[in-house]
C-alpha cells in the first residue's frame, strides 16, 4: 500500500494499480475534479500536487505516492471563499460550470504565485493569463469573464472579507467550490455499470450474437439488444447491445468474449462520393423509412431522388418560378448582375464537457428515478415512459446541474434508453456514461454542408432574386434543416431554395445551437460581402438597402458607427500582418411554449420557485430568481429556485432559444399573483396596494421581507405563460422581423499572410432579442456564441478515415476547440425594443448570437487579404494565400 495526503487527510491506496489519480480522487467522493478529455488537454481534473497543478486524468495513481494533494474542495470552507472564487462569481466567469473547478484551482495557483512576485495593485495582462490557463478548456465560452476575474483577483480586488461580490448566477457558489453535483457525479450504492457494445463495421447486417455466453460470464447481470428492426448497423459505433455488469473490469471480459456474425455490406463515408450514382447505398429502397431523424422539432417531408440523396420540402422559396426566370435570363443590359459561389462547411461536434450520462434507479413498483444529463427533464420523462411503456407518473427525471448540451442532449439517446431498460429489468440502479471518445465519435454533430448560392442584383443594387441550394451531411441522418431561415429574409424578393440530405455511413447529426443556420449564414453573408465589394458599396449600406427587418436595421446603423467599422482599411494590402474587419448579420425565429407553468411558494423562509425546466449553463435559474427579485424587494438569499425535476410544473426543453421566452412571463404572472395572495392572506381587506417594495395598508407600509416573516402558512400560486397577442398583420410583421431575434456582428481578424494564421482580435455583437432579464448572464451567452462561432470558423472539424469508417478526431487533442488565448475582446450591445406583442417582451438569444460569426470572420479575412474563404474551417490546410 502507498500513502498520500488529500486535503490534509491521509489516504492509503494500492500502488500497483495502473489507474489514474483522478480515479482515486473521485472514488473518495471528491467529485469537484471532473473527467472530461481523459488525456490531459482540458484541465477539468486539475488539482494541486505538492503545490503545483497537475492533470489527474493522466497522472498515474502510483505517482501520488507520498504526495500532498489539494482539490477544489479544499479551497473554500462553509463560510469563506478564496478571493479567486469571489472573482469568478462576481465576474460571472462560468456558465455550465463543469470546467470551473479546474479553472479555479489553476487560477488560485497562479494568483498565489503572482501575488508573491508582484506588488499589491499590479495585475497580469491578457497574454500572461492566457499562458497560465492555456491548459484549460471551456466549451461554453466564458473566457472573456475568466480573463476579467483572474485579472481583478490578481490586482487584489477580492482580498479581505469586505469585498463586494454580486451573485449574478444563482448557482455560482456551488460551481466555483466543486460542490455542484452533476449527473456525472452521482453514484448510487450497488449500481450496475451499463456498457454499450458498438459496431466496428460501418455497414453490416447483424446475424448472430453469442448472448447466452455473454450472460453466463461472471459479473454480467443482464443484456438488452439495441438494434433497429432491420438489424442493420449503418455506421461504426452503432449501438448493438447493452450489458449491465457488476464492475468495470467485467467490460474487458465482455469485449473478449463477444462474437457477432455480420453480413458485411459496402459502405460510403465521403459526403461527395455518396452522391455518385454508383455509390454504395446507405438505405435500400425499402429501408428509407428507417432513416435516422436528425431534425430538431419536426422532420421536413421529402422524397429520395438518388441512392443517398433526399430532397426536402423546405417551403422557403418565394415566387420560385419568377426567381428561376430572373436567374436564368440575366438582364445585363438593364444593369442586372449575377453573383455565384459555392461554400463548404465541416461537421462540428458539440463537445459538451459533461458527457452523455444516465443513472436510472429502480425504486420498486415499476417506477424509475432517472438522473440524466439532459436539456429537457420534462420531455425526457415523457419519452422514457413511452419507450418503456410505463405510465408517465412512474418516471421522474432529474438534472440539477448540466455540464453543457448545445443541442446534443435534446432528445432521448441510447445512454438513457439502455440505463432505463436495464434498470427496470434488473431492479437495480444502472449507470451508463459516454467516454470522451464516444462523445466525440457518436455524440452528435452539426451537419456539414455544400452550398451553392446565386444572387441577382438590379442596377439600383437592390436584390432582385436569389437561389440557394444546400446539401446537408448528417451521416445516416436526414432532415438537418439548414434553409428554412431563408424564408423571411429580404421581404418578398423571389427566391428558389432547395435542400438535399445526403446520407453516408457515419453517425448521425443532432440538433446543435441553431442547427443549420451557421452553415447557411456563412454562405449568405459571405456572398453578400462579395456583392458589396464588386458593386463598390459599403457592406453595411448594402444590407440596409436590402433588409426589411426593423430591429436588424437598427443594429446595422449602430454597427456602422462602431470604431472598428469606421476605421477599417479598405485600401491595398501589402504587409505580412494584415488586419481586416468584416460584418455579418443573422436572424433566428422566435419560439415559445405557451404551456410552461411556474409554481411559487411563499413562506416565512422566503420564496421558492419550481418548474420543470433545467439550467444547461445558460442561467435559467438565475433568470427566474432575478424575475422574482424584480417583483419582491427581498435579498436573493431568500429566493430558492428549483428546476431540473420532471415532477414540477410543466416546463420546456432548453432548445430553440425558448427557455427564457417561455418561462419569463410565467414567473412574472406568478409573482403578481403571489404579491396579491400574500397581501390578502395577511391583511385581508386592509390592502391598498402591492408593489415591488411591499404592501401598502391603510395605515402603514409592510416590506416584503417583513410580510414573509409574518406568514405562518405557505402561500402558493401556479401560473402559466399563455399565448402572445396576435399580430395586426401577420405577413407584414413577419417580413419586418417581428417574429425573429437578430444579431449583427462586426469582427476584426488579424491575418499572418505568411503562415495563413488567423486571430480574431475584436468582436462587436449587437443583439435584438427583446428585453434582457439578467444582463451579465445574457452577455456571457453572447460571448459563448461568439467563441463557439470562432471554433466553427477556424478550428473545428470532425475527421473520418474513409476506408474504415472510424472517426479520427476522438479526443480534445485532435478535435480542436477554442482556447482562452483564441478569445477576442468582445463588446455586446443589446437593442431591447421591438417585441411589444411578445408576452414580457422577452426572446431567447443563445442561438442567434452564434449564427453570423463565421461569416463575419470570413468577411474580415477577405477585407484583410482580398481572398474569399469558402471552406470551413478556414486554416492553413485549405486557405492558400
Amino acid at each position, binding site marked *: 500500500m502507498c500513502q498520500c495526503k488529500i486535503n490534509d487527510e491521509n489516504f492509503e491506496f494500492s*500502488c*500497483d*494499480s*495502473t489507474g*489514474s489519480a483522478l480515479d482515486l480522487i473521485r472514488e473518495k467522493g471528491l467529485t469537484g475534479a471532473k473527467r472530461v478529455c481523459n*488525456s*490531459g*488537454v482540458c*484541465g477539468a481534473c*486539475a488539482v494541486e*500536487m505538492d503545490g*503545483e*497543478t*497537475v*492533470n489527474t*486524468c*493522466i*497522472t*498515474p495513481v*502510483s*505517482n501520488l*505516492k507520498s504526495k500532498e494533494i489539494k482539490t477544489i474542495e479544499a479551497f473554500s470552507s462553509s463560510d469563506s471563499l478564496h478571493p479567486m472564487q469571489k472573482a469568478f462569481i462576481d465576474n460571472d466567469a462560468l456558465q455550465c460550470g463543469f470546467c470551473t473547478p479546474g479553472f479555479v484551482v*489553476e487560477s488560485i495557483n497562479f494568483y498565489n504565485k503572482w501575488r508573491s512576485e508582484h506588488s499589491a495593485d499590479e495585475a497580469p495582462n491578457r497574454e500572461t493569463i*492566457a*499562458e*497560465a490557463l*492555456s*491548459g484549460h478548456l471551456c466549451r461554453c465560452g466564458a473566457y472573456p469573464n475568466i480573463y476579467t476575474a483572474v485579472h481583478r483577483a490578481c490586482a487584489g480586488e477580492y482580498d479581505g472579507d469586505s469585498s463586494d461580490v454580486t451573485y449574478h448566477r444563482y448557482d455560482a457558489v456551488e460551481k466555483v467550490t466543486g460542490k455542484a453535483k452533476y449527473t456525472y457525479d452521482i453514484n448510487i450504492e450497488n449500481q450496475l455499470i451499463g456498457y454499450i457494445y458498438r459496431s*466496428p463495421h460501418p455497414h453490416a447486417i447483424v446475424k448472430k450474437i453469442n448472448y447466452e455466453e455473454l450472460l453466463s460470464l461472471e459479473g454480467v447481470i443482464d443484456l438488452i439488444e439495441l438494434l433497429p428492426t432491420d438489424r442493420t448497423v449503418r455506421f461504426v459505433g452503432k449501438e448493438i447491445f447493452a450489458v449491465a455488469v457488476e464492475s468495470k473490469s467485467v467490460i474487458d471480459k465482455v469485449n473478449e468474449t463477444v462474437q457477432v456474425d455480420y453480413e458485411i455490406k459496402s459502405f460510403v463515408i465521403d459526403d461527395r462520393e455518396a452522391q455518385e450514382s454508383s455509390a454504395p447505398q446507405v438505405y435500400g429502397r425499402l429501408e428509407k423509412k428507417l432513416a435516422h431523424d436528425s431534425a430538431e422539432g419536426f422532420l421536413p417531408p421529402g422524397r429520395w431522388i438518388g441512392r443517398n440523396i433526399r430532397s426536402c420540402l423546405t417551403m422557403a422559396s418565394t415566387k420560385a418560378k419568377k426567381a428561376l426566370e430572373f436567374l436564368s435570363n440575366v438582364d445585363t443590359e438593364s444593369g442586372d448582375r449575377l453573383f455565384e459561389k459555392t461554400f463548404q462547411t465541416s461537421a462540428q461536434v458539440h463537445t459538451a464537457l459533461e458527457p452523455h450520462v444516465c443513472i436510472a434507479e429502480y425504486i420498486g413498483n415499476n417506477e424509475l428515478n432517472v438522473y440524466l444529463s439532459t436539456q429537457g427533464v420534462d420531455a425526457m420523462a415523457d419519452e422514457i415512459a413511452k419507450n418503456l411503456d410505463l405510465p408517465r407518473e412512474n418516471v421522474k427525471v432529474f438534472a440539477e446541474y448540466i455540464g453543457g448540451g448545445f443541442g446534443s442532449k435534446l432528445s432521448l439517446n441510447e445512454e438513457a434508453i439502455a440505463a432505463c431498460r436495464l434498470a427496470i429489468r434488473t431492479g437495480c440502479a444502472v449507470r451508463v456514461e459516454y467516454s470522451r*471518445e464516444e462523445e466525440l465519435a457518436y455524440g452528435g454533430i452539426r451537419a456539414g454542408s455544400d452550398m451553392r448560392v446565386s444572387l441577382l442584383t438590379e442596377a439600383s443594387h437592390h436584390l432582385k432574386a436569389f437561389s440557394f441550394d444546400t446539401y446537408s451531411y448528417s451521416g445516416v441522418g436526414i432532415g438537418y434543416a439548414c434553409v428554412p431561415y431563408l424564408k423571411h429574409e429580404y421581404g418578398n424578393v423571389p427566391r428558389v431554395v432547395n435542400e438535399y440530405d445526403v446520407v453516408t455511413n457515419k453517425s448521425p447529426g443532432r440538433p446543435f445551437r441553431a442547427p443549420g443556420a451557421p452553415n447557411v449564414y456563412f454562405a449568405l453573408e459571405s456572398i453578400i460581402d462579395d456583392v458589396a465589394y464588386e458593386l463598390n458599396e459599403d457592406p453595411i449600406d448594402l444590407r440596409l438597402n436590402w433588409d426589411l427587418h426593423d430591429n436588424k436595421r437598427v443594429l446595422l446603423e449602430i454597427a456602422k458607427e462602431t470604431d472598428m467599422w469606421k476605421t477599417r482599411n479598405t485600401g491595398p494590402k501589402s504587409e505580412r500582418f494584415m488586419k481586416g474587419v468584416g460584418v455579418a448579420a443573422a436572424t433566428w425565429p422566435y419560439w415559445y411554449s405557451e404551456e410552461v407553468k411556474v409554481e411559487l411558494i411563499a413562506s416565512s423562509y422566503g420564496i421558492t420557485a419550481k418548474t420543470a425546466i433545467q439550467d444547461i449553463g445558460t442561467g435559467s435559474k438565475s433568470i427566474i430568481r432575478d424575475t422574482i427579485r424584480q417583483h419582491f424587494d427581498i435579498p436573493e438569499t431568500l429566493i430558492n429556485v428549483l428546476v431540473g425535476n420532471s415532477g414540477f410544473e410543466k416546463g420546456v426543453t432548453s432548445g430553440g432559444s425558448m427557455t427564457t421566452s417561455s418561462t419569463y412571463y410565467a414567473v412574472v404572472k406568478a409573482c403578481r399573483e403571489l404579491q396579491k395572495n400574500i397581501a390578502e392572506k395577511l391583511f385581508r381587506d386592509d390592502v391598498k396596494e402591492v408593489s415591488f417594495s411591499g404592501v401598502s395598508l391603510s395605515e402603514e407600509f409592510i416590506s416584503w421581507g417583513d410580510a414573509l416573516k409574518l406568514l405562518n402558512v405557505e402561500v402558493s400560486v401556479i401560473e402559466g405563460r399563455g399565448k402572445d397577442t396576435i399580430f395586426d398583420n401577420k405577413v407584414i410583421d413577419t417580413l419586418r422581423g417581428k417574429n425573429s431575434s437578430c444579431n449583427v456582428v462586426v469582427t476584426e481578424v488579424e491575418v499572418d499572410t*505568411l*503562415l*495563413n*494564421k488567423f*486571430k480574431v482580435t475584436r468582436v462587436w455583437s449587437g443583439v435584438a432579442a427583446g428585453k434582457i432579464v439578467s444582463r451579465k448572464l445574457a452577455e456571457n451567452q453572447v460571448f459563448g456564441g461568439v467563441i463557439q462561432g470562432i471554433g466553427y470558423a*477556424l*478550428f473545428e472539424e470532425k*475527421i*473520418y*478515415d*474513409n*476506408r*474504415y469508417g*472510424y472517426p*479520427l*478526431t*476522438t479526443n480534445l*487533442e*485532435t478535435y*480542436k476547440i*477554442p*482556447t*482562452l*488565448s*483564441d478569445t477576442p475582446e468582445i463588446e455586446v450591445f443589446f437593442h431591447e425594443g421591438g417585441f411589444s406583442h411578445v408576452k414580457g417582451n422577452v426572446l431567447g438569444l443563445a442561438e442567434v448570437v452564434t449564427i453570423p460569426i463565421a461569416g463575419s470572420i470570413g468577411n474580415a479575412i477577405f477585407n484583410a487579404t482580398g481572398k474569399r474563404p469558402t471552406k470551413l474551417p478556414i*486554416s*492553413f*490546410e*485549405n486557405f*492558400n494565400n
Partner: protein
Amino acid sequence: MRVFFAETIEETESILKDSNITEFIAGGTDVQDRVNSGILKGNLLNISGVDELRGISVEDGYYRIGALTTISEISKNKNLKEYEGLLKALRIIANPQVRNVATIGGNILQKNRCWYFRNPHFKCLKKGGDKCFAREGDNRYHAIFQKGACVTVHASTLAMILKAYAASVELSDGNILSIDELLGDGSDPTRDNKFPKGKLLAAVHLPKIPRPEKSKYFRLIKRELGEWPTIELFGRTIVERDVIKEIVLTAGAVANIPIRLTEVEDLLKNEKLNKDLFFEAVDISVKDAQPLEKNKYKIPMFKNSLLNLFTQLFGDYS
C-alpha cells in the same frame, strides 16, 4: 498489468532484469494517456521516486540534466538563460499542468501522436500490426519527409532541439549515446527511437554554448496555445557583420524523427544576409520532401515557416 516501484537506480536495474517491464512511469503523462485509451498494456515501472535522476548540474563542457527533471524545472534554471530558443520551447510544450510533471527523459522517449497509433481500433505497425494506416489514410498531420514504413511524425520537441546542439544522453550503466544514436534513422517502423531496451536513461548532456549565439524556436499551430505542432523548427546562429558565421537548423513534426536541414545550413553558412538567399534556402529545404496525399499543404507551410524562422533569427532580411 501492474506497477512496480523503484527508489534508486540500483533497484531500477534489478527490477528491469527480473520483471517483464513494458515501460517506465516518470511524469506519467504519456503513459497514463495510453493506459486510459487501452493501447498500453503490460507491467510498468514507476521511477518517479528515483531522486538521483533529478536536477541540473554544471559539468565540464556540458550541463547534465537528470532524466527526471521536469520541463518547468528546466525552464526556470538560471544557468540556461543563453538557450533562448530552448527556453521558449519549454514554455510552449504541452500545457502548464503537464510541464509541471513531464520530464525531459519522458519527453524524448515519448510515443508519437499519430491518430491511428493512439486509436485503440487500429493495429498499426507500432502495435504489432502489419500496416501503416496513415500512409493510405488521413495523413494531413503526418510526415512530409519519408524515413521508413511508419509515416507518423516524431513527438518530441526537445529531441529536435537537442539534435541542434548535438547533445547526448547518459544511460544508468554509464554508456553515452549521441542524440542521433538514440533517435535512429526512422527506418524501424515498430519504434519511435532506438533507445536500448531494458536500459534506464539517466541524464541528458546539453553542450555548453562556446560563444554567444542566437537561437529561436518556432511552432506552427492553428490556435494560439496548447496544441501539438503541425510543423516546428529550431535554429541556432552566429552572425558577424551581416555574415552568417554559424548556423544549425532542425525541424520537427515533418518526419518520424527530428531532421537537420544540412543543405540549407551549407547554403547559408558564410554568406551575407540577403533576402534572395533565404528564398533559395527555403526552396531547397523541401527538395527531398515526399508529401502524402493529404499533407501537401505542409510543403508551402514548411517553406513559409522556415522564412518565419529566418525572420526570427536574422530580423527583417527575409
